[in-house]
Structures are given as C-alpha cells and as structure tokens.
C-alpha cells in the first residue's frame, strides 16, 4: 500500500522540477553571483600578479625598491598592450582618486623605453609613485577577497594603516540615502494606510454591485502600465502641468509662483503612493470582508459608541490586513526604482537608483552588489522584527 503511494507522491513532486530549475537559474544563481561579486574582485590580482607578490614583503611606508618599480612597469606595459590597463586603473582609482590618470600617464610616458632606473623614470612620469599611498592603493586593489565594498556602502573606509574610519562628511552618501529610502518608504506606507483603510472599509461593506464597481476602480490603475501611470504624473505635476495650471487659474498661486511638484521628493512621494495604494487596499479588503458586520452591531447593542466599537472591536480584527498591507507597501517602496528614476529628479532618488547608477554608469558592480545585499539584509531584518511584533501567521494577503 505504501509503495505505490510513495511513488505517486514522487511523481507529483517531479512536476515541480521545471519550477525549481527556473527559480534556480533566474533567482538563486543571480543572487549568489551578486553575493560573490560584493566580496570577490579578482581583476587587479589577475592583472598584476608579480607586482602584488613583491608588494607582500613591502613594509607599507618606505619607498619601494627598484625591483618593485621594474616589476610594476613591466606589467603595466603588458596590460597596455592587451588594452586592459584602463579597467585596472579604474579599479585602483576607486581606492585612491587620481590613480587612473597616474597609471595611464605613466604607461604612456614609459613607452617602449628601457630606462636605467625604473624608479626615477616612474617618479618623473608622476611624482606620486614616490609616495606610499599609490603603492598601498595598488596593493589593496589587488586583494581578491575584500569587504571594502561593504565599508563603502556604509560610508566607511580604511586609512593608510588599515584602520576603519568614517568617510569625510562630504563623501557620506550611502547611509543618508539608505535612511532617506527607509523614511520615504515609511511615509508612503503610512499615507497608503490612511488613504486605503477607509476605501477598503467602504468596499468591504458596500452592496455587492457597488463593491464590484469600487474594486474595479482600484484595480484598473493597478492593471495599467507602471510607465504610463508614472509619466501621467509628470503630465499632471510638471511646472506647466494640469495641477499648476489649475492652481494658477483659480488664483491660489501666481503665474510666477508655480510650485515644483515633480522631479523632486514630492513627485516621488505622490507617484509612489498612488502606484502602491492597491497593495494596501487589497489585503485590507480581504481581511475586512471576513469580519462580520454583526460585530459592530453587537458592540453597539452592548453599549459601545461607534468609536469604541471601532477601536476595540473592528480595528484589532483588521490588524492582520494592516500588517500585510503595510509590510507589502514598505518592502516594495524600499526597492522601488522606475518611479523615482522618472519623477524623482535629483532630490527624490532612492537607494535603488544608486544601485542602478553603479551597475550602469560607474560600473562599480562590487559596490552595487554590496548595496543590494545590505538592502536585502535590511528587509529581512525588518521582516524578523515585524514577525516578532505582529506574528506572520496572523498576516493575511488575501
């Protein structure tokens, strides 16, 4: 009896293999690759193996020996021939600004020459080679495994002697951006809750015909392309847009006093709130529909005012929906990219836009990966705290 049952179960389980494969290829593997990239950067180490080997014996403060100069110059020349010097120089430059031009200039200045003293020749090409910091930068860039992307992602750095220090205030950008992202997500969640709760209540307690109509009004925008909705907000909110025109027309503001509603934080907040609102309304609606309207009647028959009934009887029963909706909106906002990119301007950017910048513009994938991992850990941490506070099993998404 047990054997055929077991094999039937196995066959049924086998049907999920395509999904397992799909998730493995499209989710687990990229995620793993990102994790690896955030701590593993072998390019410089592969490009300058002999230089790095000789730097291991170096004390880190004195000017390196002639041998080391020669080794470095030889490897520079080789890389230049292979047209790889630029990318290596870029990586070193991230640790010590100016090093990219230093390295390219030096390679050009040395040319095919075979000087008596490599040291003099290189220092002549750029005096910075006479200082320890240039060599330190090369050595650090050559570490195959490194936590510096994580340090950078939280605005820390290592000084010359390897101690962890804070970045100078004017270069601290990631932590403030991360906190701004968390703050914006919190504000959006709260606004969505305030706007969505009464709507969900209305839909859950309306007659079936009206409730379907209202639900449709929630869902139609939800089904509309994200890009269309975001660009519509630009049309509405821009300087010569519908909202400003209307305000000018009814005389609230003068023509010169048009308010900047888009390409800033206001644009990001307005557009994201509108886009994420259904994610709040739908879980709330699902929970509210399961609450019998008789409970409020019962409360009033027991002597409670509407407010007392709401606070003590209705609201506590909607908490699973409040929790589900808020968590959903919050997590979606933390990782939101397209809307802030389009309507956020300079001040309305979020952490995802910075990650995208490092992926596409600066090509510092290691830093992008580290920021991504920090974001992921942040969300997981919030989820755990939340689970401790609310209890995930009480949450209902639908």
């Amino acid at each position: 009896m047990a054997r055929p049952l077991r094999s039937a179960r196995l066959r049924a389980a086998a049907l999920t293999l395509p999904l397992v494969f799909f998730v493995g290829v499209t989710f687990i593997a990229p995620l793993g690759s990102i994790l690896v990239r955030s701590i593993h950067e072998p390019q410089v180490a592969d490009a300058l193996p002999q230089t790095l080997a000789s730097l291991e014996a170096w004390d880190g403060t004195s000017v390196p020996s002639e041998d080391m100069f020669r080794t470095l110059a030889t490897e520079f020349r080789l890389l230049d021939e292979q047209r790889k010097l630029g990318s290596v120089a870029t990586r070193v430059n991230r640790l010590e600004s100016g090093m990219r031009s230093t390295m390219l200039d030096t390679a050009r200045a040395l040319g095919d020459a075979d000087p008596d003293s490599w040291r003099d020749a290189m220092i002549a090409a750029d005096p910075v080679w006479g200082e320890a910091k240039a060599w330190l930068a090369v050595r650090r860039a050559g570490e195959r495994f490194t936590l510096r992307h994580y340090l950078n992602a939280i605005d820390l750095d290592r000084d010359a002697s390897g101690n962890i220090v804070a970045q100078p205030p004017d270069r601290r950008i990631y932590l403030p951006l991360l906190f701004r992202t968390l703050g914006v997500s919190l504000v959006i969640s709260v606004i969505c809750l305030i706007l969505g709760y009464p709507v969900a209540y209305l839909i859950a307690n309306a007659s079936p015909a009206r409730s379907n109509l209202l639900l449709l009004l929630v869902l139609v925008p939800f089904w509309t392309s994200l890009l269309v909705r975001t660009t519509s907000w630009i049309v509405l909110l821009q300087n010569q847009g519908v909202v400003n025109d209307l305000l000018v027309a009814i005389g609230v503001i003068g023509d010169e006093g048009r308010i900047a509603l888009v390409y800033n934080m206001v644009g990001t907040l307005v557009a994201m709130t509108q886009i994420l609102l259904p994610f709040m309304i739908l879980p709330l609606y699902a929970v509210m529909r399961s609450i019998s309207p008789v409970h409020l009647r019962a409360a009033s028959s027991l002597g409670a005012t509407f407010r007392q009934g709401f606070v003590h009887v209705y609201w506590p029963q909607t908490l699973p929906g409040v929790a589900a909706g808020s968590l959903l909106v919050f997590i979606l906002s933390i990782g939101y990219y397209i809307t802030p990119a389009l309507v956020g301007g300079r001040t309305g950017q979020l952490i995802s836009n910075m990650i995208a910048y490092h992926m596409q513009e600066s090509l510092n994938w290691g830093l992008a990966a580290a920021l991504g991992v920090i974001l992921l850990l942040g969300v997981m941490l919030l989820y755990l705290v939340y689970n401790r506070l609310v209890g995930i099993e009480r949450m209902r998404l639908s």
Partner: protein
Amino acid sequence: MADTGTETHIEFRGVSKTYDGRTMVVQNLDLRVRRGEFFTLLGPSGSGKTTCLMMLAGFEVPTAGEISINGRSVQNLPPRKRGIGVVFQNYALFPHMTVGRNLAFPLEVRGVPAEQGAGRIRQALEIVRLEGLEDRRPDELSGGQQQRVAIARALVFQPTLVLMDEPLGALDRRLREEMQFEIRRIQQDLGVTVVYVTHDQQEAMAMSSRVAVFHRGQVQQVAGPEILYEEPEREFVASFIGDNNILRGRISAVSRGVCEVETPDGIVRAFPVRECRPGQSASLAIRPERVGLAKPGVFSNEFEARIDDILFIGDHLRLRLNLCGNPNFIVKIPNIVGHGAVLEGDRVSVGWAVTDCRALPDDGPGGGSGEGPGE
C-alpha cells in the same frame, strides 16, 4: 389577545417596514409583550420576524409606526442607549478577545469599575455554567459553549430585556434541546423579558410563554403554545404549528355553535373559530392524532376510505388516505396493536369528534387565510 393583569414591557403600534419602497417586510404590526414574558416570534424565513427584532434592537428604523419600551417611544434612541441584551444568530463573539474580555466589554464601555465588573462576569458565567473559562478564546470553545458565552455577554450588564435571533440555529439537535431548557431556566431565574426569534415551531412551543406567528410580514395569531396548537385561528397557523389535515368546503348550516361544511365526501361537522354564516367557504383543520379507526357509530364525523400508504414510524403508524378532497389526509395511530393490524389497500372507517375539528371561515375576498386548494 387579552393583556390583562400584567404590565406591558414592549409595544409595537402600527409598525411597517420596507427596504425598497415596494415590498412590505413588516405590515402594520401591533404587538404587546408583557414584562417577564418569554415571547417568541415564529415564522418561516422571510416572514419579517427578524426585521421586527432588529427594529426593536434599534438596528433598523420602522418605515411607519412606533415602538415603545416601558411606555417610552424608542424611535430616536440608538441601540447602545436601549440597554437591551442581544444574542445574535452566529453569536458575534469578538474573536480577538478572550471570554473574559468579551464579557468585560459591555461593562467597560459603561464605566463599571473593574472590581465590580469582575464579580458580575463571574456571576454571568455561573448563570450559563461556564465558570473558569474566562481565559479561553471563542475559537477554542465548542458551539454550545460559544452559545453560552453569547448569552452571558447579553446578560452581564443586567438588562431587563434580552433579544435572541435564532440562537440555536447552528447547533445540532441534542445540544439544541439541552439549550432550550437552559435558556428557559435562565429566563425564569432572572425574570427578564425575552423576545426570541425562531423558525422552528417545536422550539417555539417548548420555550415560550406566548408565540406570535408571522406570515408574510403580518402576525397571524398571538397566543400561548397550547391555544396555538388546539385553537388555531387561521389556516396558516393550523398548518404551520404541528401537523394538520386541511379540508376545504362550503358552510351549509350553522346551529348552536356547530357548523356543517360540505366536502366532496359529505358533510363534516366542526367548531367554527369565529362567527360564520351559511354559504361562506371555509377550511377545516383536523389533527392526524385525533383521527381514529373505529366501527361506524362512534364518531360524529365518519367516513370510509382506502389506505393508500402506511409509514411505520416506531411509536406510531402514519396512514395516508384520500379523504374529503384531500389526497394526503394523514391518520396517526399509536403503535399499540402492532405493525400489520392494518394493511395498504384496506378500506377502513375513520372518524373524529366535532371538538377535534375546527372550521376556519375565509375572511372573504383578499382575506389572510385564503390559501387552501380549490380557490
């Protein structure tokens, strides 16, 4: 409907209710409930009984007419100020609160001090025999226990009037019968007035001091269970309360309180429930257990018929005859002689006493009881 002696607690005067402006859910209703009474609104679903209860509780507003409690109109009184305990159909216990918190809720919103409240909660749980379950949540209780909690919650703030809307509908048969006794006991111990809604006529008969039978938004009869059973005034009541054989005919003569009604099989003699005159059409109601098998000459109403069908129930047999125009005339005979004393296809003589046969004269055109066949 004599309300002599006792004080009126609740009064409906000319109350009507419509939701859509066309269909009257309740029509021109007059009712009086006495203090301390167990008053049941009985009727099939859609007959308006629950609407009446909801109007009394204050959740629905009458379209016309007036409801008063203790002689004062409650027209403008919101439910929370009526001080009525309500037991809802599916109990409406607050699922996120323990039993104790459920019971504390009405006391807290009334500002009863906590120590005093604790005593009352204990007392209420004692009344429903659920001591020690304060810390359970409703979903950890059985259906019967939830029912008791709902009753305790409706009693804990010591109302003098308790409304119950089909409170036993969700329970199985055994539990339902047990709870019928319980509710009756609690009502009598506390002396509260209970207005109870049910569609189960046995439940209504077992529990009530008086019953109002609802049909299509109107009250057909208000009376104690025995009167309702023995002296139904309308055909709907006669057929809704217990089993009744209904025969249709025309009154041919009336003399000394007895009327003669012509049916397809001959004259039936019966007591009319109200004044009637020859020529009027009428329904006749005869209880199946009051019909006997006997030799001719025993009963004043006697007929001969063939037994179409016999059902063996256990303590009695149900015979189906085609008699006086009713093809489903039922005769219930006690199982004294044993199964096999009568057989299908036998021609038997059946009869019943005049006192066991009630004639319900039609009200005339458009009357409330004109529902029988042949009209």
